[in-house]
């Protein structure tokens, strides 16, 4: 990569209690780039996302964002810096309406804004979210709990966008969704890429992810065992499946 990295993860070691989950993972995302983190269940993908978003403190290694070491920055400050995670399972506030969910998403901006600026950013953010997912606009006063899985994922993504992130982390954005709905999600992600946003997508299924990103890496039991351009990996998809237990879209179809 020629351009200086937007996100650089270096020799990251992390785990829970005495259980080491990530073993010296390194990873880079270039500005405007999109990378997929692939791997079977238990490979450490979600743990890696927790470290990058700040929910889990790594034991060793460093995370830099825009050249700044953010390893010790608490989770609640990272959204304001421009790193936002859409977690596995979406994490919607089910007791709130869709619009309230979106408004909470902008909290990270408040630290640095005056109230006038903030109001404008909120209005812009809502417009952008509803442009991307028009169905949410009609239902904005509905409780998030009432939505279908696909719409909930839309809210989760739209909520993350409210913080005007430079880097969006998505942990299994299509989990539990019908393939058609999953394609909808990726359609939206493609629009975000065109707008210049950088993305990290965590997926178990390879095909859709590889078609979307420009690079991908594969985790196995907490170690990075492979990293390459998406094109090259697409050619070796059968190999990926055989060696790393990755599932292709065929499994999604049966969901």
């Amino acid at each position, binding site marked *: 990569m020629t351009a200086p990295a937007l996100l650089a993860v270096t020799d990251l070691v992390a785990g829970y209690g005495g259980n080491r989950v990530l073993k010296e993972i390194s990873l880079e995302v270039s500005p405007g780039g999109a990378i997929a983190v692939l791997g079977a269940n238990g490979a450490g993908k979600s743990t890696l996302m927790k470290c990058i*978003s*700040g*929910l889990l403190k790594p034991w060793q290694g460093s995370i830099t964002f825009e050249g700044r070491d953010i390893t010790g920055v*608490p*989770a*609640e*400050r*990272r*959204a*304001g810096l421009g790193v*936002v*995670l859409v*977690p596995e399972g979406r*994490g919607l*506030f*089910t*007791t*709130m309406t869709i619009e*309230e969910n979106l*408004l*909470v*998403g*902008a*909290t*990270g*901006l*408040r*630290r640095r804004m005056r109230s006038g600026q903030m109001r404008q950013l909120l209005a812009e953010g809502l417009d952008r979210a509803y442009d991307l997912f028009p169905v949410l606009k009609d239902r904005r006063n509905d409780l998030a709990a009432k939505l279908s899985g696909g719409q909930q994922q839309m809210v989760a993504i739209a*909520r993350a966008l409210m*913080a005007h992130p430079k880097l969006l982390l998505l942990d299994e954005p299509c989990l539990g969704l019908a393939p058609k709905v999953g394609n909808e999600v990726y359609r939206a992600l493609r629009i975000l890429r065109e707008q210049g946003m950088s993305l990290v997508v965590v997926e178990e299924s390879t095909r859709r992810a590889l078609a979307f990103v420009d690079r991908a890496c594969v985790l196995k039991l907490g170690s990075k065992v492979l990293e390459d351009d998406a094109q090259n990996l697409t050619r070796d998809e059968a190999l990926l499946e055989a060696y790393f237990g990755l599932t292709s879209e065929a499994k999604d179809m049966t969901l």
Partner: protein
Amino acid sequence: MILALQRVLDALSVGSTYALLALGLTLVYSVMNLINFAYGMMLVWSAFIAVVMVNANVPAPVVVVGCIVFSALLSVGVGRLAFQPFLTAPPVTLLITSFGVELVLQYAAIFVFGENPRILQVPPVFNEVFHVGGVRLPISELTTIVVALVVFALLYLILNRTSFGLQIRAAAELPDMARLMGVSPGVVLTTVFAISGVIAGLVGVLWFAQVGAVTPRSDIDPTFKAFIAIVLGGLGNTRGAIVGGLALGAIEVFLSAVLPPNVIGYSEGIVFAIVIAILLFRPSGLVGVSARL
């Protein structure tokens, strides 16, 4: 008919006090799962501050505001010093910590004010009674009901119409998710302890103005009433606190009306029995346990 109306008014007044108490407690519970046994001491300290100010001839409105400010500061101070460091600890740690805080505040009060009851003088108007068509309308009861309504309304607006309120609700439902969105646990805790303290200050004055006197050990009664109310209504949400408080008030007033004189001394125990009976049928309370603040 008039008697029934009278009972309803009494029940509303007693119930509003309990509902207010329960609100102050449930807010903190909702964001940090803290069963705060030190809560009653906030009321006691607020009442002592009121006694001191009244004895210094401070005008009543200033006394009330002074108590609210003092109690809010005390609550935030205790929250940050004693509870926030244990935010990620198991709830039992927080529970034990709250016992410790209760004792510290209690002995601090004994040290400063002594063990003897202190009379809280109230303005004469507070003890006056209106009569409307045979119904007694004591100013103290009306004040309690109005204060409760105002607090309910303000709290509703804060939780539903402000950014702070949204952040509190987010942190109450999914703390980690809230952090990912930029919600600072420290800011939420400070806000919640401040609101809890404001309510405690207000109820402290109301409660001990009606009791007439305060001692450093007067905290048990309001603390227990608040706990019963939130368990009866449903843990961790504002509707549960309000419904539970009002229901507890209604049960108490009903019992005092129907129990024969020789049994009335046991009414506190009978109230508990009724509450337990209700919980047998509705284990998660009248409103139920809901993540919705």
